[in-house]
């Protein structure tokens, strides 16, 4: 059984800089971590690897330093890693990212399961997981909070999808993709033996050329239907005002304030 985990290396939230030209994040030189939600995906893959004896591969698209994220995943117990890195991939939006990842996943076929984190803390779109499934033409369940069963013979997965007011139980066929939420498990720490293994392991880097089935114009900025025009912090919210006292008096005060602000 083959399990693929897609992860993203993201800046540690305190230190974010924006490139003034492309309006995208400057990633190099900033402390990096595995996107927190992806650690749940890695952990889930490891648990099913242990239960079912699967082989696991971690995949990421990013600058060369993203290899660090792959090594961290390997030190947690993942078997193999692939780095997709090429200047041509730069500036990808979620559509181009999913397109690129899909090409890599097809190269790694056959596969049974793909795990992704629900969303990344930098982009926050939650689109790449489902987008990847669509590019691959496979079914997916997003926001998985628990996998109830994986039936290898029947190639079925039964999982709980977290909704705002409860959860749904969904059955889908493998090969399929699952995006996971933090409720699903508690990620393990890397182990020292895992770190030793990660240090020694050669991680192949695939460039745009290596993804032979891909069209160059579909990579990176040129392959991105959405363009980031500008990134800016929202205007600071003013201090709120808290009224006290009798309800009828508060209502009167509120009315006067709303009129003065021309809200009504």
């Amino acid at each position, binding site marked *: 059984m083959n399990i693929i985990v897609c992860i993203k290396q993201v800046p540690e939230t305190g230190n974010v800089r924006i490139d003034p030209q492309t309006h995208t994040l400057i990633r190099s030189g900033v402390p990096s971590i595995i996107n927190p939600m992806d650690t749940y995906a890695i952990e889930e893959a490891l648990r099913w690897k242990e239960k079912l004896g699967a082989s696991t591969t971690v995949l990421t698209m990013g600058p060369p330093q993203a290899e660090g994220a792959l090594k961290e995943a390997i030190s947690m117990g993942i078997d193999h890693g692939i780095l997709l890195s090429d200047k041509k991939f730069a500036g990808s939006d979620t559509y181009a990212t999913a397109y690129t990842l899909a090409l890599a996943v097809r190269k790694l076929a056959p596969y049974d399961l793909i795990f992704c984190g629900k969303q990344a803390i930098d982009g926050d779109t939650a689109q790449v997981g489902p987008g990847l499934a669509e590019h691959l033409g496979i079914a997916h369940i997003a926001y998985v909070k628990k996998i109830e069963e994986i039936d290898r013979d029947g190639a079925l997965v039964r999982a709980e999808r977290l909704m705002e007011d409860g959860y749904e139980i969904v059955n889908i066929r493998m090969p399929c993709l699952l995006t996971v939420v933090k409720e699903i498990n508690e990620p*393990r*720490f*890397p*182990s*020292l*033996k*895992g*770190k*030793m293994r990660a*240090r020694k392991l050669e991680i192949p880097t695939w460039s745009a050329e290596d993804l032979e089935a891909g069209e160059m114009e579909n990579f990176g900025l040129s392959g991105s239907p959405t363009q980031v025009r500008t990134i800016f912090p929202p205007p600071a919210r003013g201090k709120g005002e808290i009224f006290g006292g009798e309800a009828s008096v508060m209502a009167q005060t509120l009315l006067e304030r709303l009129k003065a602000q021309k809200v009504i």
Partner: protein
Amino acid sequence: MDYFLTEEQKEIRDLARRIAREKVLPVRAELDESEEFPWPVMKSLAEADLFGVYLPEEYGGIGGGCFELCLAVEELSRACGGVAVTYAASALGAFPILLFGNGQQKEKYLPQIAAGKKLAAFALTEANAGSDAGGIQTAARPDKDEYILNGTKQWITNGGESEIYTVIAMTDKSKGSRGASAFIVEKGTPGFEFGKKEKKMGIRASTTRELVFTDCRVPKENLLGREGMGFMLAMRTLDTSRPGIGAQAVGIAQGALDEAIDYARERVQFGKPISSFQAIQHMLADMATQVEAARALTYAAARYIDSGAKDVSKISAMAKVFASDVAMQVTTQAVQILGGYGYMRDYPIEKMMRDAKITQIYEGTNQIQRNVIALQLIKEKAQGK
């Protein structure tokens, strides 16, 4: 300050630091209150392979030594001295097997300890034999292919929770200091029971119990080394593990120093943060200097032991006595800097002072350490060194 750690040593330190921050810090106050054994933290340490840092690769360890153990203990101690000693005491219990075990004993016990599947513990102290270890009464009488143990060990760290115990007992009272032997005794052996859990001033997350042996039969294969080697084995074991206590003390002191600096920067009195007052600055400077000196001495002792040197007693004793005295001084000063808040149990500092005290007492009181150092100095001079 850079101590020029190898990549692997940095990984050990960073992993221990991460576990300390993510798993120990959030629960240390609760553990101090409830005195509950920190199994969840031990599980995380086991999964991270940290129980094997000082054990050889052939027994499932990482192949490091005393120094690597010190790195891990120091990081854990920064978060909680009680959790740290729970981890370190397993190493103390394992050292006799590592240093004196035969192939079969090492094969049987060390991999389980390295994997953190079973914890170890070391049992020497008795009610009437603390500093005077030679006064132990627990006896081991040979009987065909077994030894029968009778007696009570006192204040054993991890007592009742560990599964593997290395126990020092008298096999021949007439031989005095050459009359003791060391045995591996497993939890669950008939005639091996535990007393109540002790209530302590500090390191309350650590479990301390009596071990009670009543006609407890132990197979001959569990004798470590030969009869009569018991005290020598115990002394060598303690020499090797003492820098670990030094590291625990350094960690506790560092944790207290960090809290004190943070507080001094935030606390405003007389219109200024108290960190701008010279009195506070001098206190912090002295604390930081002491901690760095303790760290440097502890690391030097650990590295010396790992080099395979034979004459480690003096430096090992120096590291322990200095670091533990520093821990007590630094935590006391840290409480002082936090003032009233330092005295309140809602703040983490008073616990650190309570935790620090034991480092001056166990694994050989600081008075005994001073004896060891002085006697060694005199002996060296007599030998013309």
